[in-house]
Every structure is written in C-alpha cells, then in structure tokens.
C-alpha cells in the first residue's frame, strides 16, 4: 500500500511539475519579450527565442531523454518485470532515472570508429541530418494559449506560420535524408539495405500521413495549428467540444499509424531490423548512434504533441474549462492550459511505447500492404466523406454525428461479443476435466 500512495504522489507530482514548468515557460517568454524590447527589437523575436530555448532545448530534449529510460522501465512494467534498478542513489533506484547519466556517459566516452571506406562528409553529416528535422518539427506546435505577461502578448509557440501543417509535412519528409544518407555513406550493404527500406517506407507513409490531416484542415478551415486548437474549443450542441477525435476519428487513427511508421520504431522497425539487418546505423558508434536513437525518441514526443494538438483538443483542458477561465488569473489559466497539452503529449508518448510493446513487427510486404492497400484508400475515403459533411453542414454538427457513429462502430467491433473466440481453450479444458472425472 505504501507504494500505492507513493505512486499517487508521483502522479500528482508530474501534474504539478508540468503546471509549474509551463508557468515558468510563460515567465521566461515574458522576460524574452522584455529583453528584446530593451535591445531595440520587436518583442515577438524575444518570445520566439525564449520559446526556442525553453520548449525545444529544455522541454523537448529532456522529455526525449527521459523517454529512453521510460521505454525501459515502462516496458518492464508492462511485461511484469522490474526493469533497470541497479544504479542506486542513497539506496533508491529512483525509477531508473540515474541510468540516463550512465547511458550518456557511455555514449560520450565510446571509441569513435573511423571506417576506411565511408564517404566521410556524408557519414559525419547523417546523424545531424536525421536529428534536425525531428527537432525542428516542434517549432509550430502551439503549447499554450496567448496571454499577457509583463505587458507583452506572449504565447508558447516558437513560430506561428500560415502554412503550419505544410511546414510539418515538409520537415517530416526531410527526415528520410538522414537515414538514407547514413545507409549510403556507411558503404555497408546491410546499412544500405536499411537506408533503402527507410526511404521506401517513409515515402509511402508520408502520403497517408498527409491525407489523414486533410480532413482536419477542411473541418477547421485552416492550416495554422493554433487556429485548429481554437476551432476545437467550439461547442457542438452547447456541450460537446469539436475535438478532432470526435470530428475525424478515422483521420486520427490513420495519422497515428502513419506517425508510427515515420518514427521507424516497432512494429514498423524494418529500417532498423535488429534481428535481420542491423539497420542504417550499423556502422555508427558512440554519440553518433546516440543521436540517431535520440532522434527517434524526439520524433515520438513531437508526433505525440502534434496528435494531441490536432486531434485531442490541444491546450484545451476540456473539463471545467469555462469555470477555470472565470476563476483563475489569466497567466495561471494559460499555464494550466499548457500543462494540459504537455500531459496529453505525455500520455500519448506512453501510448506509443505501449503499442510498440503490444504488436509484433510486420514483414516488409505487410508494411507496404498496410500503407498502400489499407491506410491510403481509407484516408482517401475519409477525405471524401469529411468534404461531403463539411459541404452539407459547415457548422461541423453532421461531421460530429458521423464521427461518433464511427467511434461507436469501432467500439462495438472491439469490445462487444469478443468472448465468442476467447474461452474456447477453457471449454476444452472443462471438457477434458469432465472426461477425466468419471474414471477417477
């Protein structure tokens, strides 16, 4: 029971910590604006630089680094194991977090292997090229709403682009260059195979990734992510928020699946394929490999943030939002909103790791089949249905009805009547026991 209360404290601590962190982010952004004005520039530049430091360098990097430990510890809990606990600080393993330091130390002090046959420039450049796009994706994610700090308009978004989603697609497709170059420049046939696999997989899934978001674009009539978030705050029938997951559930599923393929993790880990080819980074050692691996985790965080922005209501707390807005000061309310988005992102990161430990990996032909024969046609159909609904009823009510029907169908297919196949072995066992009994 002690552990139960301790874990409750940990969960509460995470929530409070996220709230305090987002409050601090707002303050830093306000300070950035003030500093920019003092230097004679427009305050927006100061806010952008402050957000770049706090959200991307601090928030994103720490989140991704902790996720490397989270993957090991959480997978252990899902598989009824203990997980990393051998490094102890004053007798406590602290949930395996000290392993972060050990891993970093190991990566940084490893021998830097210099291959004789590599193409030197590309080989050295590839980790950075695969790291950069994953990192830069986060720039357009609106973490918090706009509010006034120190007299300046401040929002937790590095840059607000007219072409927000197009930027997302563009940068996401750049990620393939890093992996393909790493495979090519290593001058190793297995690495090349991994790079080619990565290229064909990512190009395929980019199509369904883009088409999955077309529905959201049409529903909210915008490409800017912050406007999408605001659009999700409107209430349908005065009680139901127009969340992407309600308006466009199929789009969300397709986007989530394609995003998974983009991160190149299991069950889509064919480019890595540690059981067959070691993958496009087979020749990389030390921190160069570490960057490749870290970029995967950064992609997880970024895609979780994008999914929660476009489909789960972004920074809207949803529950008690009106009450909170009335009773809180604007800055704490904004911090609460930002903490909500961070919490949603956290939950989706957990979800991605859970999926990674649930599903066995695909064969290569199955990956291509899933993309071109299932996700792509479904995404196209989703685009047409969404377009028709928006055309008939621009107020999103019809779309929400269709979306709710889709969710109900999925829930029924998933959970109703599933007992039909499962207890069969048990029935056999009962029959066997019944046979055995009379002779006894």
């Amino acid at each position, binding site marked *: 029971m*002690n*552990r139960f209360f301790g874990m409750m404290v940990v969960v509460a601590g995470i929530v409070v910590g996220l709230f305090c962190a987002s409050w601090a982010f707002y303050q830093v952004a306000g300070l950035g604006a003030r500093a920019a004005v003092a230097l004679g520039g427009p305050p927006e530049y100061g806010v952008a630089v402050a957000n770049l430091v706090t959200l991307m360098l601090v928030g994103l990097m720490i989140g991704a680094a902790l996720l490397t430990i989270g993957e090991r510890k959480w997978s252990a*809990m*899902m598989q*009824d194991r*203990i997980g990393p606990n051998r490094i102890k600080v004053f007798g406590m393993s602290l949930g395996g977090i000290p392993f972060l330091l050990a891993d970093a130390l190991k990566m940084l002090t490893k021998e830097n292997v210099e291959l004789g046959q590599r193409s030197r420039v590309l080989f050295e450049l590839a980790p950075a090229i695969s790291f950069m796009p994953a990192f830069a994706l986060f720039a357009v994610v609106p973490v918090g709403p706009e509010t006034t700090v120190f007299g300046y308009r401040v929002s937790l978004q590095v840059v607000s682009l007219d072409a927000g989603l197009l930027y997302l697609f563009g940068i996401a497709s750049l990620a393939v260059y890093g992996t393909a170059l790493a495979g090519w420049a290593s001058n190793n046939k297995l690495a090349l195979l991994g790079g080619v696999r990565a290229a064909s997989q990512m190009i395929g899934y980019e199509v369904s990734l883009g088409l999955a978001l077309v529905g959201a674009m049409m529903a909210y009539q915008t490409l800017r992510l912050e406007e999408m978030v605001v659009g999700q705050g409107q209430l349908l029938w005065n009680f139901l928020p127009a969340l992407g997951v309600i308006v466009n559930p199929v789009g969300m599923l397709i986007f989530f699946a394609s995003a998974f393929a983009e991160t190149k993790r299991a069950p889509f880990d064919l480019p890595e394929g540690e059981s067959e080819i070691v993958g496009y980074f087979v020749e990389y050692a030390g921190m160069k490999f570490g960057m490749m691996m870290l970029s995967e985790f950064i992609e997880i965080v970024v895609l979780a943030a994008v999914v929660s922005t476009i489909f789960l209501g972004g920074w809207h707390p949803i529950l008690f939002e009106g009450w909170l807005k009335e009773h809180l000061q604007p800055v704490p309310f904004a911090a609460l909103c930002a903490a909500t988005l961070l919490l949603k992102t956290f939950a989706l990161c957990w979800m991605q790791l*859970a999926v990674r*430990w649930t599903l066995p990996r695909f064969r290569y032909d199955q990956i291509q089949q899933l993309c071109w024969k299932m996700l792509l046609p479904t995404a196209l159909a989703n685009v047409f249905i969404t377009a028709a609904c928006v055309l008939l009823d621009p107020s999103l009510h019809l779309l929400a009805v269709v979306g709710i029907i889709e969710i109900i169908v*999925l829930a029924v*297919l998933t959970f109703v009547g599933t007992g039909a196949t499962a207890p069969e072995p048990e029935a056999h066992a009962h029959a066997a026991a019944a046979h055995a009994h009379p002779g006894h």
Partner: protein
Amino acid sequence: MPYHLPQDKPVSLRERLYLTEAIRGLRILTGHFLRNFFFTRETNPDILARSRKLSLNATLAYPEEKVPYPPGYRGLHRLVPREDGKPRCVACYMCATACPAQCIYIEAGELEGDPIEKYPTQFVIDELRCVVCGFCVEACPKDAIRMDTGEHAPPTYQRSQQIWDMKRLLRGTPVSYQYDPWLRRGASSIPEDKLAEMRANARPFHTVATDEYAQTPGFSVKALAAEARARVEAKK
C-alpha cells in the same frame, strides 16, 4: 512478390481489421502496467505461490532474493565438527582416494599418547578442481565431510581464494554418534566432562546418506516419507 508467401486467412472481420485486436491487446497491456505501477511487488521466492491480485510482477531480484536450492542439492563442502570444535575427520584418506578430480589434500597427524587415532593437520579442497560429484561424502566412514551447506563456492578475484583450508571448511552444527571411537574408548585430547556431554548428545547409528542430518537445513526425507505413509494410510 517473386515468390509465393502463404497468408493465413483471418477467421473473422474483427481479426481482418487488425485494429480492434490491437486495441484489445493494448487494453491488456495497460492493465498489467497499471497494476505493476501502483502496487508493491511481492518478494516471495516461490513465484508460483505469489498472490496475483494486485501486482503481477514475476521477477526475483537475484542477489537480494534467492530461491532456496532443492533438497539434496550438492553445495559447498564442509567439514563436520565435533562438540569440542575439532573435525570429525580421522584422516583416513578415503575421500581423497575416491575423488575423481583429485582436489582433496590431507595431511595426517598423530594424537599425543593415542596409538590408534589420527587427525588431519591439513585438509584442503581446491574448489576450482572439484567436480561436485559428491563421492567424498559417500566415501566418508565417519560422516565427517558433507555437501549440505545449500550454497555454492562464492566467486573470487583470485584463484588462491578458491582453495579452502580446514579453517574455512570446518563449520556448521557439531555432530556425535554413539559408535564414534573417541566416545566409546575415550580420547586423551578431550576433557572428561566434555566427553560425558558428547556421549549424552550422541545420536544413534548413522546409516544412510539421505538421513535428515545430511540434508539441507529445514528439509527432512524422514518427515516427507512419514507424510507419504500417512497419506497412504488415510486413503485406505
């Protein structure tokens, strides 16, 4: 596809959709995660006997928690002491002769004023050479060497530390039998009152190696046999 890949036909629409099965799998995994996250892991070394009501964790954190070795496990040797702290060993060389690995080295000494008895001045076992066959225990006529410690030779950094001398081997509870020659004839090295105490404590004749005294502490073949007999009786 240049070659044919046989695809198992999924039986139902549900399985063909794949997504629903994935969601159900996720639900199971989430249950495991939450239970293991919020509730304390049980540390019962008998994993199958653990209660699986709250935590499902099935790990044994090895160096801190250990499964006890099964009864009859041949562990590290020990030399059985007498009540006066000396080994029961009479330096007859039977164990050293029986040893196929030749890992036992004994040097015999004479007792002052005793024309018959010998005792080991040195008794050394090289645990690196030992093949843990247990022949020495079988060969011993005096029940002076046993492998009932229930532990294995601990790891060391130096080979020399794996060579166990009498000082390290001589441990455990002392044992006396009524047929022990030093009890029947008396021994000049043991004081009279100590001898009387040993005679009082002496156990009856020791017959088989699977006697309860020769086993892992806490385990008794005799008790198990008695239980089995009682079960048979009860069935009748």
